[in-house]
């Protein structure tokens, strides 16, 4: 077994080694992976030279999984086991899916329609999280091969994965779960329009206020950003997480069905195969109409009948007019939230394959009264931005001048009396953000209360998405109204919510029981991880040990570097105590006991708390030219 290499304390392991990190655009239709090589962001290709990986996963009869072009080619032949656009179902339950009839998959009916949905495939029940994990695994393998990870050129530190800006907490959490299943360390979830702005802004040295109009395969986002010297500040974001190029395909599909019905009076409903076939034909027609006046759609259905219809560009524009208009409402909302006039917008950047459609470009141009910017490949710009961010996050950028200030897309609120929503954190708040809210008891001697957190802009709880129901227990028994329970909601830089609670009068930390109304439980993830890694107990142990060692190595290196830079911020005694924990953890890392190593990591973390605070204060003080922030009360 290979021994861990550990450098002498006070020296960083490899001062100028380039750390490997990737950016992944996990799209509805296509996914990509990119990285920064010698200062340039590059999209990585597969062995056939394809940059785009179709987000299609096929579960094969022999138990293997096929992802990408090969799976896409079989979509019509094996629709129930070939899943496309899984992103549309991320963090969603069956009741969220509007038009099941037109989706050729076997959804599993669960007694509880608010449970995460599952698809029946020959590989068993699959959640959208698992299907997305299969896509991520393929991209990870592509990156590792291309970067030479197994050839000894270092290891992959992690990935920035992009999500639609308008994704809610459930959808973000599902994306993070998928990455975990794929064995990827998520450095950050990055909003797609922000990623695009980074790639565009750095490429063009852009300064000023820009709009990113991002119409992807299944999601629409619009973000307004202020770009100043490497700082990307999101002023407002809005969107529709169920509107994209897929819907344009669907309009064509419905039009074809109408045509078939017109010419054939004894029309019978289509099977899964024919549905998939027509949807594919519809997508091809849509793409063809970008550069042509009409598209001929010809195919033979499973009953032998021939479909031969011609769709003109003008008809296509009419069919999809409502969809195009649907993107302008969020656009206007974002403009109002940012408090901007059209004249203040310096440029509009188009992102996402669906913005190739001429009617979309025209609508954007008409609204903003300026020609949109299309000098970047709309399919690749998000992945490139993610790679740039990943590169900066692992510390490869020496100038330290890239700063992304993103916002929360949806308001967070609490259920109050009568099913009304009390907003706690308004939409477009810069992340990270925290708000505290005080609660009191309603009855004498009450020791528990239930709090529902919702996300959305509507006034009624029923119209918003329920994120979680928290039960606060262990409140000391007091007279009604005497207890003061302060609940703090924190949204982190990934846009994910966490909650903590404390009883103020007795300062008893109330026990928070989190019962997520969505998402996978820890047990479910462990179960999935187990089955995906061959289920052998030995494998699981080896994996845990490897993870523990990587964690230990990372923290030892981080603390060692910190001590060498800022060791003078603490007393010699404190320094000795930290060094003792480093030594102890180094010894532990040589053992095969993952639990002991993790405990050592916790102890080292604990030992460095005061040091971390001192470093933070020192660096901010330096930034504000010598201002002493020792007294910041954190």
């Amino acid at each position: 077994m290979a021994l861990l290499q550990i450098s002498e304390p006070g020296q960083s392991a490899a001062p100028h080694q380039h750390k490997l990190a990737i950016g992944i655009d996990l799209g509805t239709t296509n996914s990509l992976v990119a990285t920064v090589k010698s200062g340039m962001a590059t999209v990585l290709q597969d062995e056939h030279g394809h940059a785009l990986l179709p987000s299609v996963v096929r579960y094969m009869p022999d138990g293997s999984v096929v992802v990408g072009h090969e799976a896409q080619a079989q979509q019509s032949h094996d629709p129930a086991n070939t899943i496309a656009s899984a992103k549309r179902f991320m963090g969603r339950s069956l009741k969220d899916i509007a038009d099941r009839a037109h989706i050729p998959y076997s959804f599993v009916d669960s007694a509880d329609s608010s449970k995460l949905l599952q698809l029946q495939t020959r590989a068993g029940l699959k959640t959208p999280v698992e299907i997305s994990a299969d896509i991520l695994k393929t991209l990870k393998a592509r990156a590792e091969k291309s970067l030479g990870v197994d050839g000894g050129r270092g290891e992959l530190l992690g990935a920035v994965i992009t999500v639609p800006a308008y994704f809610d907490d459930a959808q973000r959490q599902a994306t993070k779960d998928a990455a975990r299943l794929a064995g990827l360390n998520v450095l950050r979830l990055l909003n797609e329009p922000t990623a695009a702005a980074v790639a565009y802004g750095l490429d063009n040295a852009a300064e000023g206020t820009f709009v990113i109009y991002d119409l992807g395969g299944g999601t629409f986002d619009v973000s307004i950003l202020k770009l100043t010297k490497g700082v990307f500040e999101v002023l407002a974001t809005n969107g529709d997480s169920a509107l994209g190029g897929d819907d344009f395909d669907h309009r064509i599909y419905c039009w074809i069905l109408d045509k078939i019905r017109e010419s054939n009076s004894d029309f019978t409903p289509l099977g899964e195969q024919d549905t998939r076939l027509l949807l594919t034909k519809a997508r091809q027609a849509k793409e063809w109409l970008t550069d042509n006046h009409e598209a001929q759609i010809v195919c033979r259905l499973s009953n032998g009948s021939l479909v031969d219809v011609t769709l003109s560009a003008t008809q296509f524009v009419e069919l999809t007019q409502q969809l195009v208009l649907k993107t302008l409402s969020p656009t206007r909302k974002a403009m109002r939230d940012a408090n901007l006039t059209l004249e203040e917008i310096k440029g509009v950047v188009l992102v996402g394959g669906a913005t190739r459609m001429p009617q979309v470009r025209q609508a954007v141009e008409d609204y903003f009264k300026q020609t949109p910017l299309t000098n970047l490949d709309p399919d690749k710009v998000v992945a490139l931005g993610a790679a740039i961010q990943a590169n900066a996050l692992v510390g490869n950028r020496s100038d330290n001048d890239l700063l992304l200030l993103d916002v929360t897309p949806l308001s967070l609120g609490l259920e109050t009396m009568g099913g009304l929503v009390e907003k706690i954190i308004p939409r477009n708040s810069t992340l990270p953000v925290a708000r505290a809210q005080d609660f009191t008891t309603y009855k004498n001697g009450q020791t528990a209360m239930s709090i529902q957190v919702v996300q959305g802009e509507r006034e009624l709880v029923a119209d918003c998405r329920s994120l979680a129901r928290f039960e606060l227990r262990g409140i000391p028994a007091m007279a009604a109204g005497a207890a003061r329970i302060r609940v703090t909601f924190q949204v982190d830089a990934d846009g994910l919510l966490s909650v903590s609670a404390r009883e103020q009068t007795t300062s008893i930390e109330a026990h928070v029981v989190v019962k997520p109304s969505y998402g996978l439980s820890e047990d479910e993830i462990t179960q999935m991880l187990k089955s995906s890694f061959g289920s052998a107990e030995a494998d699981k142990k080896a994996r845990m040990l490897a993870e523990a060692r990587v964690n230990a190595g990372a923290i030892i290196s981080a603390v060692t570097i910190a001590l060498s830079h800022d060791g003078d911020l603490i007393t010699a005694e404190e320094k000795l105590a930290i060094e003792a924990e480093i030594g102890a953890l180094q010894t532990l890392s040589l053992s095969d006991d993952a639990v002991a190593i993790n405990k050592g990591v916790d102890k080292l973390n604990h030992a460095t708390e005061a040091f971390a605070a001192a470093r933070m204060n020192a660096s901010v003080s330096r930034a504000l030219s010598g201002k002493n922030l020792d007294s910041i009360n954190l």
Partner: protein
Amino acid sequence: MSLNYYQLFDLQPTFNIVLATLETNYRKIQSESHPDRFVTATSAEKLKSMQLATLANEAYQTLKNPASRAQYLLELNGINAISESNTSMPADFLMQQMEWRETLEDASMAKNVSALEVLFDEMRAEAKNLQIDLNRLFDEKKDYVHACETTRKLIFIDKVCADIQHAIERLD
């Protein structure tokens, strides 16, 4: 004692502040404290980073917005502008309030977006005037009693503005 928001951004505790300085210093603090800078750091450092970046955001938003800045400045001087014991408002302003509310309701009922936009601009102009008053009351006269009254007017106008935005959104 902990630093107040003004001290955090190296600013004098006045109502009139140079927004560019606030912005520059906010960005300097975020550059050092943002969680993106601590992705590979220890969990102790990650926690500190999250706390400081959150505080900087809160402080920045409070000082950037004139109404919350005025409210905060009063707080530093021991006055709670929105406490229940602090509700007096001049009669002419109360009359004015009712008129604005009526205009808002009428325009909403008539689904008249442009009327709502006109009202919105009117409210913004009114807010500008109140800010000029606040400059004088806070920074020249140090008249916190009247500054408090004017602050409450500004808070009220902000609220009407938010309601107009909401009404426009519903009609959109």
